[in-house]
């Protein structure tokens, strides 16, 4: 089974392997998160909410969304 973003830990650098389909994918692409992009996980909250950083940009993703994003560490 593929690794998903909710498994990432604080401090990890990771590469996005696959985004979920649908509207949310377009929204992610718009914000700059695309398949193949390398980002770092700067915070992981107890409920599974993840905060990613790319360059100077910090983006929070809810746990449900994080579970649907496949990553490679």
């Amino acid at each position, binding site marked *: 089974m593929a690794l998903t973003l909710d498994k990432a830990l604080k401090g990890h650098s990771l590469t996005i392997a696959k985004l979920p389909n649908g*509207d949310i994918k377009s*929204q992610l692409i718009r914000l700059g998160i695309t398949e193949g992009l390398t980002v770092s996980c700067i*915070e992981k*909250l107890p409920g599974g909410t993840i*905060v990613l950083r790319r360059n100077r*940009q910090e*983006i*929070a993703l*809810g746990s449900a969304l994080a579970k649907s994003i496949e990553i490679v560490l």
Partner: protein
Amino acid sequence: MKTETIASENLLSKQKPTNGNSNKSGSRTKVVLAGNPNVGKSVFFNHLSGMYVDVSNFPGTTVSITSAQYKNYNIYDSPGTYGVSAFTEEEKVARDVILSADVVLNVVNSLHLHRDLFLTLQLIEMGKKVSVLLNFSDEVKKNKIKIDVEKLSQLLGVEVIETSAIKKEGFDKLDFAIENSRIGNCDQKVKELLSDTAKITGSEAEALLIKEGDVEVAKRHNSDPGTVDDREYLYIQRRNRVNNIVDQVEFENSTKGIIFSKLGRMTLNPFTGIPILAFVLLVIYFFVGDLISQRVVDYTENEIGVGIFEYNLKSLVADYTPSTITVEILGENDDVIDSRSFEFPQGKSENPELAEKFKSFSTKDGSVSDFVYENPIATLFFGEFGVLTMTITYLLFLLLPLVLGFYFIMAILEDSGYLPRLATMLDRTLNRIGLNGKAVIPIMLGFGCITMANITTRILGTNRERSIVTAILQFVIPCSAQLAVIAFLLARAGTVPLLIFMVTIFTILITLSTILNRLLPGESSPLLLDLPTMKIPQLRNVLKKTFFRAYGFMKEAYVWFFVGALGIGLMQITNLLSVWQNLLEPLTTNWLKLPKEAANAFIMGMVRRDFGAAGLFDIQLSAMQITVAIITITIFVPCIASFVVMLKERGWKEGISIWIGTWITAFFIGGLVAQIII
């Protein structure tokens, strides 16, 4: 401000978005400020228009259109959006105003070119006349980033101008930017892809949106929207072009260029974030609950309002009308030390001797004068609940200082960038009640003004989330004016009532949202939130916002207060008030266990909730009765302004259900608590 926003919305709906670039001869050029959220559009708008719209440090400050005239142009502020599309209500508002624009001033945050240029390229592909304002140039310098502006301009094919809105740099070039706006370099493949649809719609702008699957725009032209795959293809191509451009124009000269906000990080992590939240709440409590609502208001209300303003006005009226004045001298513990009654059957001026005695007695330390006029009209305007006496004291010397205090705190919070981080920290908790962290933003704004917050629900991802938050706002969130009175009354009642109040309201919040989450169909959207950097609030902006909001509040509230007071006064004279009181008596005295006069508060509360609380001030209530009264008034119907906006935003069915729901819940819960604690 509220009414202005609503008015400008009507204006928008009348101006049906028409063909992209066609500048109807005769009408003024329509210049739209567009850009990602939180990039400074509203700062530019304020500068150009000389008007005031809110500027805050979180995405989603502007959620409706405001327009103004600037030179020969009509200039429009729009909600921020990461792209022209229709994922949320707020985005649809932005989309329509962009579609109707003659010129787009695209504001870009230079620190986030990757994110922001996506919209820029989309605007260019839409065939809009564009100029780019490369904002935040102060931060660019601070972070030692180099951007090749000329190269960027050349690649985009439009003017690119460096600005720093908060330092007012580059403002002199805005005219140049508008005049020299032009259609940029559109990708050839995209152009070909659109050419067929563009023939039907008459503009590339709408053709592009239709290809990207915008159902509403497609309907306007009776054509079929593109599929999700079409959109993804266009988006990915565009994203690649953005990355390519950024690689060519942006250089980081320093390795220390990365912004690292330690405090920002700490607010996210629960171990540090919860203590920070507690600290913030504590500061608010001491500032508003203690300093303002006790010390400051005690002074302004009693010393200035009652002691100086009312005393002199009433005394003046007593000169000319038959009156009886009772003066009590109170000791340190509010015990009556001395008391005298002065009768002026012909008015005070007819009996100068007694008037003099009254004057010297009533100006002693600790004196309280009670004026009773024989004439009902004099009573109506200058009596205990007088339209011109009580209302002015209440508005100017009680509510105004309290509301100023709240607005000041809210402005600091909004400008600091704390709200999006709080949203992230609370995301998981809100998931349990069918919301995501983003809901924190409208809910927190509700503590300022429910009417405004009702519109801000547009930033939420789905309709069901909007419904849940709208209900929460009307049922349990007290707005600043209401909080002000609550804080004031609770300060008299003590800590236990405060706890009972908070626990009750919190329980209703959880129950209400859990039920709605179960009942409403569909699924809520997950959190996807771009976090702005935390910063020290700008004092100027904070003060300006506090002032404008307080001004807006007074402007809207005073009419209702005078009309309400007049209405209550007339009901009192005509005995209708006792009819109403007797009608509600079983409910008020048996169920809520309050004196029957408390029924006044409910009619007054239908006008405005803060006005309703005014009905409680002059009734003798025990601490527990205050608790019950406050709980009931808090849940009770929203004020007229927010009711109207709610109907507009959410429709009749939902609006009326919520309105009736608040009646039932207010009395049911109020009574339940009364049965337990009184």
